[in-house]
């Protein structure tokens, strides 16, 4: 069994990591993608975000990663109100949030190693430290032997795991995943969720948007159900 102690999230301590306060997101062409959304998430929690297509799951995650700004209301992450975060501080906010996408978002002309190293390079870490951490992260997702490969040479599940390694390599306390298993068969998807489960075990705060209700049923974690941009169900902390 692999050890995941390298990921250092906070222990569940009652510390608030995310707070949404009457958040609305309106797209001029479409209307409200999210309306009057309020919830809180504590450090070390693992939350599934479900709901029909177009319910606003991606929009919610994008607000946390500051890829989008709310039309109304406030998003507070790690005690910081994102609305008042100056432009120059956004990169430092994003370093605290590991993001995983359904389409992986890997650089096609860079090796697996270089893709995973990107957050560390960007943060200005030294060569040795980068090599050490990237290999540790690749080891955790079981891709240590593929570090020289280009993303196209990998299967969908492998590419997704590279995306996951990149999201956690800088040890962010918060990890967001947007349909990380959308294209994967049940076995692979189980494998990916097991990976998240292990991150959770070492204290990382996770929010995972997914359609994969079978997987959600496997675990007993807090689950949000979104519909038409509203939070219609919150199972609460389990």
């Amino acid at each position: 069994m692999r050890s995941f102690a390298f990921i250092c999230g906070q222990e569940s301590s009652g510390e608030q990591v995310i707070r949404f306060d009457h958040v609305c997101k309106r797209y001029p062409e479409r209307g409200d993608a999210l309306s009057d959304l309020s919830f809180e998430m504590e450090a070390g929690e693992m939350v599934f975000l479900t709901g029909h297509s177009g319910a606003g799951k991606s929009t919610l995650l994008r607000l946390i990663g500051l890829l989008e700004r709310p039309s109304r209301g406030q998003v507070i992450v790690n005690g910081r109100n994102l609305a008042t975060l100056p432009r120059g501080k956004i990169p430092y906010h994003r370093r605290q949030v590991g993001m995983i996408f359904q389409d992986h978002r890997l650089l096609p002309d860079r090796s697996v190693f270089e893709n995973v190293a990107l957050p560390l390079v960007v943060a200005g870490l030294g060569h040795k430290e980068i090599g050490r951490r990237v290999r540790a992260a690749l080891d955790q997702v079981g891709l240590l032997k593929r570090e020289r490969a280009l993303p196209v040479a990998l299967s969908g599940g492998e590419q997704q795991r590279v995306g996951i390694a990149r999201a956690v390599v800088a040890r962010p306390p918060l990890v967001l995943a947007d349909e990380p298993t959308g294209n994967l068969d049940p076995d692979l998807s189980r494998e990916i969720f097991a990976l998240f489960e292990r991150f959770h075990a070492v204290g990382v705060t996770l929010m995972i948007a997914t359609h994969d209700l079978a997987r959600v049923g496997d675990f007993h974690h807090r689950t949000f159900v979104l519909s038409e941009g509203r939070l219609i169900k919150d199972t609460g902390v389990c």
Partner: protein
Amino acid sequence: MARPQSRRRSGPSLLELPGAWLGHHLQSAAATLGRLLHAPLATGMTVAVIGIALALPAALYVLTDNLRQLVGGWDQGAAISLFLHQDLSDADAQGVAGRLREWPEFRRVQVIGAAAALAEFRAQPGFAEALDQLSTNPLPAVLAIAPQPVYATPAEIAGLEERLGQLPEVDFVRVDTQWLMRFQAILDLAQTLVLLLAGLLGLGVLLIVGNTIRLEIQNRRGEIEIMELVGATASFIRRPFLYAGAWYGLLGGLSAWFLVTLAVVALQGPVSRLANLYRSEFPLAGLGAVALLIILGGSMALGLIGSWIAVNRHLRGVEPD
């Protein structure tokens, strides 16, 4: 395989930071150069265009520089002729010349005694018979004066003419300023042309680099977006583009220097042959070290400014989605 890693989260230590920062810059500069050289054709085209653009004013500068030297060799003859009063002896003329040699403005004061002047005339075909008709030497002693090059401007010469005319021994002063003025005007014109051309083509270089960087930003849009997603600062993303601009400028400046040097080497033969026909020698001067430094520094600055403009205009539009 179990591998316990107890190390907790830690950033680079404070001591490492300045080294890492400098190292990052050097690495970024080297990596950018490597990337440019990886596409030799595209890079070569851009560099060649910059080189040609900069070679034009540089070549014109070399031309005026050489002309100036050529004329420096010309003013062997006096620019000022001082005709002394007829009744002064050659010895008196030597006395005046001695005093004038003390003047800092003059490079050379040469006495042409009355007898010598007559002999010179006599040597001209047809003059001998005419001079024989005269019982006395009609020619005065003349002082041929060459001013120092710094005083060889029309304004300075006019001032000298005035002062020399007031000397009691002097009958009249004749100054041959015409050619000086003309030549000065030509040099001024050429110099202005060099500046104009340098300004215009410098602007061209700015646009070339700006456009090249703009295209590069477009091509690497996806990469930039992902870098922003993982927390790259604006300056981190800007840096390689700025380095690319500086490299384009520097390489362009080097190729301009290479082109001009090539032209000087190619022209040296014909110029030497021409000079030989005039029983003279004329080694062409190329771009000096100072001019080379100015070209390299200037072209690098132009590349940097060009890419800076492009980066500020076009990177703002790149947001991750």
